């Protein structure tokens, strides 16, 4: 029996808390069908090696601190504010400026890689220049696959991003929209759309929905606090004022409000994913006002339950509404109101919900297909038969 290949996954963070973190774990899980997977991360309070499910986790305890991340975020925002045509894509100053965030946390990775001798390395994130540098110091010829995690508002104009993409033999992306974003940095990048494995939890619809009385409501998702002065809250306010005869359930960061007839019932914020999924499953329509994101996982979950979506034009979620014909997209407040108005009619809502569910099940509902796409993208591996 031949020895299984060994793959190293270099990820700045190893958690399920974000869409990117969740997707990284799914990719690593898929990889585990054909290889022994070792995860190397700067995370952790003390260095060490431990088992984490199907993976072996190597913690270096050199984490990127919140202050470092804030600095990167500020620089990204500043860079994103510059018109694309006038961005300086080859300035060495920016990489130098970000050195503490990009390189320092990965100093010890060479030693771990030297000990592991992996057959393949997965680097997670377009900004993980330190991991690429460590990989090159370990073995400049070792094949590398990049998990892009190009978020919607990602500033891709940093010169180090191109360097990370260039080093990769394959760049894994979740959606075509993400592929387009990576293509803006390197048009000839070897991107592979692998999708994501998602499934609707049947109990979400069968168990009673204690959050909202009845099942006829518009579910509005915001990322803002209830009292925050921002566009998301303005739009949510507009909807509940414009449609007083409809139940409008608004999820804020710090509260969950159910509006009907000008009256509100306030509750705790939604924290558990099972509660979120139940609300998505029972809703008439999901209006996701949240900016950013990797692939709009919540919208896909909504579509898997047959609940059509309304999303901002130009967002990652628009791809699902447009390609899957599972919802509508809006360019401003007036269009949002028109979209919700149209969705009030079952003759619009039902077909869109049905089409969206077909799309979501086809594109994201097959774990086996996802595993095979990941293994195929990591061409050095000899995949085992995949079930599911």
């Amino acid at each position, binding site marked *: 029996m031949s020895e299984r290949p060994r793959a190293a996954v270099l990820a700045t963070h190893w958690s399920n808390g974000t869409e990117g973190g969740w997707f990284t774990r799914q990719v690593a899980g898929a990889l585990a069908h054909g290889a022994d997977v070792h995860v190397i991360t700067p995370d952790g309070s003390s260095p060490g090696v431990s088992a984490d499910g199907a993976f072996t986790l190597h913690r270096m305890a050199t984490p990127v601190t919140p202050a470092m991340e804030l600095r990167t975020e500020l620089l990204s925002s500043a860079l994103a504010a510059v018109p694309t045509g006038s961005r300086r894509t080859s300035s060495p100053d920016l990489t130098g400026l970000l050195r503490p965030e990009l390189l320092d946390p990965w100093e010890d990775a060479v030693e771990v890689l030297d000990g592991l001798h992996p057959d393949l390395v997965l680097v997670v994130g377009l900004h993980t220049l330190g991991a690429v540098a460590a990989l090159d110091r370990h073995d400049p010829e070792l094949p590398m696959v990049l998990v892009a995690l190009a978020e919607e508002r990602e500033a891709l104009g940093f010169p180090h991003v191109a360097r990370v993409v260039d080093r990769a033999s394959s760049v894994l992306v979740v959606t075509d929209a993400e592929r387009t974003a990576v293509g803006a940095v390197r048009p000839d990048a070897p991107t592979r759309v692998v999708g994501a494995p998602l499934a609707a939890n049947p109990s979400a619809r069968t168990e009673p929905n204690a959050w909202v009385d009845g099942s006829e409501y518009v579910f509005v998702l915001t990322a803002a606090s209830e009292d925050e002065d921002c566009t998301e809250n303005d739009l949510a306010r*507009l909807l509940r*004022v*414009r*449609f*007083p005869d409809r139940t409008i359930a608004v999820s804020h960061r710090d509260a969950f409000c159910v509006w009907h*007839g*000008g009256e509100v019932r306030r509750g705790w914020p939604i924290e558990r994913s099972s509660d979120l999924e139940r609300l998505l499953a029972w809703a008439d329509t999901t209006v996701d006002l949240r900016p950013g994101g990797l692939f709009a996982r919540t919208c896909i979950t909504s579509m898997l339950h047959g609940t059509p979506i309304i999303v901002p034009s130009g967002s990652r979620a628009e791809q699902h*509404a*447009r390609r899957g*014909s*599972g*919802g*509508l*997209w809006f360019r*401003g*407040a*007036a*269009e949002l*109101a*028109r*979209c919700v108005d*149209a969705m009030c009619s079952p*003759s*619009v809502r*039902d*077909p*869109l919900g*049905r*089409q969206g569910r077909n799309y979501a099940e086809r594109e994201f509902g097959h774990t086996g297909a996802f595993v095979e796409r990941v293994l195929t993208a990591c061409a050095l591996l000899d995949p085992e038969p995949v079930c599911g």
Partner: protein
Amino acid sequence: MEQPEIDPADLLDRLRDEDRILRWEPLAPSSVRRPTGSGQVRSGADLAYLHEHWALPDAFDPAVAGGGIRGRIVALVGRATFRVLGPYLREERALLGHLVRVNDALEQRCDTLTLRCEQLEQDMIDRQVAEAANLAELALWLQRDPQGPGGARSTPEPAHE
């Protein structure tokens, strides 16, 4: 029957076209609702008790006196007492009857007024909510792009009565 498939892009184009036609108009004055309940008895059990018990006994019941010499003496005294107090007891009975009827009328009036108050409050809230929704509609109409394929923005129609 299977519903027809919908292309969201086409639907959005259609919505945008419809958006160029005026869809806002001032709210018509709302008609105030008339009271619906004829009576609302809030203390039904007490009123029922009054109706059943306002007629006090106007004669002595020998059955309560018992038997024997003692019973005969009690019955004799009882009859004598009721005979002496008879006119007063009849007056009192008439008075109680009037009091029960007045009480009845007051109860009905109170219920009617309470109902009316609640309806007015609800009418006011409904109107306020409807005004807000209509203003939101107007704001959206004013915000939309005036330059459609048809050219200029349409003008508002006169207010409806």
